[in-house]
């Protein structure tokens, strides 16, 4: 199963269209802005870099299939997934 690292709003849209069932995605930087307006894919587990969300003043509803995590958790995710794919249009 792949882990997708998503770095930009446009990268987010490019990634969403090419997700595989049971993939996971990790949203960094400005993608915090994109999440709240996006249609959510049920089977995809999504994680958000907590520091980047806080920096930007974005408080997202984490009752959605979305978890705030930090770098050590990201390391664990990369252990569990292969390949790790970056998206940054």
């Amino acid at each position, binding site marked *: 199963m792949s882990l997708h*690292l998503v*770095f*930009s709003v446009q990268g987010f849209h490019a990634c969403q269209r090419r997700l595989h069932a049971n993939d996971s995605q990790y949203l*960094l*930087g400005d993608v915090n802005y994109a999440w709240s307006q996006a249609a959510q894919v049920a089977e995809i587990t999504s994680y958000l870099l907590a520091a*980047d969300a806080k920096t930007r003043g974005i408080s997202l509803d984490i009752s959605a299939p979305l978890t705030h995590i930090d*770098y*050590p958790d*990201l*390391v664990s995710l*990369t*252990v569990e997934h*292969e*390949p*790790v794919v*970056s998206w*940054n249009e």
Partner: protein
Amino acid sequence: MKYALAVHGAPYATQAAVHALSFAEAVLDQGHTIERIFFFHEGVYQGLNGQIPPQDTFNQNLLERWQALTERNVELALCIASAIKRGVLDDAEQTRYEQDHPTLAPGFELVGLGQLVAAINSADRYLEFPA
């Protein structure tokens, strides 16, 4: 696990450095290893010597954080083709092209693209930090 990382963004143009450094430090803290961080495209500007961090942004010294990784057995490798066309030169390239001064920061080295492939091949995981 053994990691290979790549960094594609320049300092201040993107958050590539901050994301990659924080991830790399967390990887090492958890007992994994990083054989090599490969700087490609605009990422080679991370290894430019003489970057003076602005005094107002919490003394965020990116160059020192990169260099600290070398003490934890991480190789900092710039793509030589990407680097020399942009003006990031080590002593050997400075001499070869008869330039005034080397511009590569201590702790970094210039290597061929083969070293990117070699690092990916021998690693369990490959991650890229574009921004």
